[in-house]
C-alpha cells in the first residue's frame, strides 16, 4: 500500500508534536493555529497536504482547515525562501522611509524591469540564501521605525543601505544578528517556535531567550527618569480592602 502524501511529509515526530499541541488545550480545535505553524515549519508553507494533515489530527474537514489557513497572513500559500523578509510599510514606517526601503528591496532582489512582488521569492524556495519578500502591516515597533523583520526577528532603525546590506548577507549565507531577537535561524525554524516548540538543548534555549531586546528607544523614558531622579510615588504596604463576606 502506498502512503498518503502527508504521511511521507509529516513523519512520526511531527505526529507526536501535533498530539502534544492538542494536549495543551481544553478543546482540540484550539490547536489548529499552532498546527498550521507546525506544518509550515516542515514545508515552509501551508500546502494542501499540510491542510489535510491538520484536518486529520483534529477530525475536521479539509475545507474547515482551508478556511482558517487562508484567513491569516502568516500562513503562506506558496513555498517560502530560507528567509522571510517583512518590511513594515504602514503609515508611520512608510513616512520614515519604509516605502522607499521596500521599493529598493523589490528592485534589488528582482530587477528594475521586474521588481520582486509581494510574497515572491528571490532564489529557489527551500534553498540556502533564498529570500521571500513581503510588505507588512504595523509590526509594533514604531519607536524604532522604519523596521524590518527577518523570520520575525527585529531589525530596527533601517535605511535603504542597511536593508540592502542585510539581504546581501542573507543571500551570501550569512546570518546577521537582529537588533532585537534571537540569533537568526530560518523561516522554518521560526515557525517551529511559533508552533510552541523551543530548543531542547539548554544552552541554545538560553541563547535564544537572552537574545537582545534592550533597545535605546525601549529604555528611553526609564533612562531619562533615572538621570533626572524622577520616580513613581513610594508605595507603602497596605492591606487588601475589607469586603463583606458573601
Amino acid at each position, binding site marked *: 500500500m502506498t502512503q498518503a502524501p502527508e504521511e511521507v511529509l509529516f513523519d512520526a515526530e511531527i505526529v507526536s508534536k501535533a498530539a502534544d499541541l492538542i494536549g495543551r488545550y481544553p478543546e482540540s480545535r484550539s490547536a489548529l*493555529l499552532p498546527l498550521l505553524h507546525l506544518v509550515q515549519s516542515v514545508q515552509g508553507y501551508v500546502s494542501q497536504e499540510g491542510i489535510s494533515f491538520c484536518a486529520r489530527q483534529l477530525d475536521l474537514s479539509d475545507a474547515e482547515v482551508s478556511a482558517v489557513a487562508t484567513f491569516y497572513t502568516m500562513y503562506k500559500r506558496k513555498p517560502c525562501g530560507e528567509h522571510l523578509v517583512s518590511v513594515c510599510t504602514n503609515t508611520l514606517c512608510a513616512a520614515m522611509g519604509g516605502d522607499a526601503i521596500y521599493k529598493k528591496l523589490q528592485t534589488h532582489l528582482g530587477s528594475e524591469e521586474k521588481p520582486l512582488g509581494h510574497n515572491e521569492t528571490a532564489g529557489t524556495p527551500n534553498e540556502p540564501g533564498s529570500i521571500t519578500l513581503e510588505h507588512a502591516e504595523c509590526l509594533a515597533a*514604531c519607536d524604532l521605525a522604519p523596521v524590518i523583520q527577518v523570520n520575525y526577528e527585529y531589525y530596527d532603525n533601517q535605511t535603504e543601505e542597511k536593508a540592502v546590506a542585510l539581504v546581501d548577507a542573507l543571500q551570501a549565507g550569512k546570518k546577521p544578528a537582529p537588533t532585537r531577537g534571537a540569533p537568526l535561524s530560518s523561516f522554518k525554524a521560526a515557525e517551529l517556535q511559533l508552533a510552541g516548540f523551543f530548543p531542547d538543548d539548554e544552552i541554545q534555549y538560553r541563547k535564544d531567550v537572552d537574545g537582545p531586546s534592550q533597545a535605546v528607544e525601549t529604555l528611553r523614558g526609564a533612562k531619562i527618569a533615572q538621570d533626572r531622579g524622577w520616580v513613581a510615588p513610594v508605595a507603602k504596604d*497596605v492591606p*487588601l*480592602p475589607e469586603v463583606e*463576606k458573601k
Partner: protein
Amino acid sequence: MADPITPVLTKRWLSPNSWQIATYEALEGYTAVRKALAGTPEQLVQLVKDSGLRGRGGAGFPAGIKWSFMPPNEDKPHYLVINADEGEPGTCKDIPLMMADPHSLIEGCIIASYAMRSHHCFIYVRGEALHCIRRLNAAVREAEKAGYLGENILGSGFDLKITVHAGAGAYICGEETALLDSLEGRRGQPRLKPPFPAAAGLYAAPTTVNNVETIASAPFIVNGGSSWFREMGREKSPGPKIYSISGHVELPGQYECPLGTTLRELLDMAGGMKDGIPLKFWTPGGSSTPMFTVEHLDVPLDFEGAAEAGSMLGTTAVQVFNETVSVPWAVMKWTQFYEHESCGKCTPCREGTYWLAQILERMVDGHGTEEDIDTLLDVCDNILGRSFCALGDGAVSPIQSGIKYFREEFLALCESTKRELVGAQA
C-alpha cells in the same frame, strides 16, 4: 504632583537580564502574588475597582468592574485570556513590556486568575512577536519551576496553568471576541454581543479578556494599594501609562507617565520635533483614534481629555508627523491597512473600506474630484456604528478627522482635474 515620568511597569527595564526570574524576584517580583493569595477573590476585585484601573487596550473600560462580571460560581470553567495581539498602527508598548518584564505579566495573570476563579489562562500573542513568545514561554517555565504556577500555588490550594498561544497575522484578532474565535481555532471574526465574554466567552464559558498592560499593573496595585495608584494620573483616569512616542521627534521611545500628560510635555521629554521641522498632525492612541493637530498640544491625554477634544485615548500610541507629510497620503495608507485587515464579516466594513481605499488612491494619484470628498464622508457615515466590532469605526477615524482639519489638502489634490474640466468646457 507626581513626577513627569513615573516608572512603575518600566521600573525594572534598565536592569540587566530584566526578563529572568532571578532579576524579577530580586526587585520585589512575586511578592504581590503571596499577598493576593492570602486574601479573597472578592478583596482583589474590590481593590482593582477602588484603584480605578482602566483597560489599557484602548477602550478604557474599568478593569475591576469587568472582573466583577464573572459569575461567582464555577459551574463551568472560567478563563482569563490576555490580549497580547498588539497591532494597532502606532502601538508598541506591550511588545517591549513582554520582552523586558514578562514576569510582571505572569504575576498579574496569577492574581487576576485567582480573583476571577480561573484555572487556565491563555496569553494570545501576536505571531510576529516571536521574541515575546520566547520570553513568555521561558517565564512560564521559570514560574512553574519556582512553584508560582501549577497545582497548589505557594500552598494556597489555588491551581493555575498558563498557555502561551501564537496568533498568525490578523489585526482583527485584537478585538476580544475575534480573538476568542481565533483561540478556538477558527477564522478571527468578531461575535455579536451580548452575550459578553463574561457570560459566554472561550468555549462558551465565562471569560475575561484583558490587555497586557492592564494585567501587568495588577501586582503593583496589590502591593501599593489603590490610593498609591491614584497618586498618579487624574481622577477618572488614574495610574501611570506607557506612552509610545514615534515618528518625527528627536527621541522616540517608551515613556511611562501619569495619565493626563500632554503632547507638549511628551515632546519636551522626547527632545522636541526632529530637526526642528514643525508638527503637523498626530494620533493620541493609534490610527483608529481621530488625529490631532498643533491646536491640541495641551490636551490632557487621558480617557476624558482625549474624548472631550474629539478623539480617543486608545493605546497612547503617539505617532507624530511633521509638515513634510501629506495628510491625504497618510490617510490613504491607513485606509489600505483597514481594507486589508477587515475580516469580511460585516458588509459595511468589508465593502466600505474597499471603496474608501480606491477613492483615496485615485485622489492621491491626482485624479480626484471635489465630489470624492463628499463620497468619502458619506461612505464613512455608512460604516460608523454599523458593524459588529470597532474595526470599521477605526477605519473612518483618520478620514473624518483628516478632512475635518486638512480639507484644503484634499481639495488641492483635485486641482488638476478641475483644470481639465475647465479646459474641456472651453
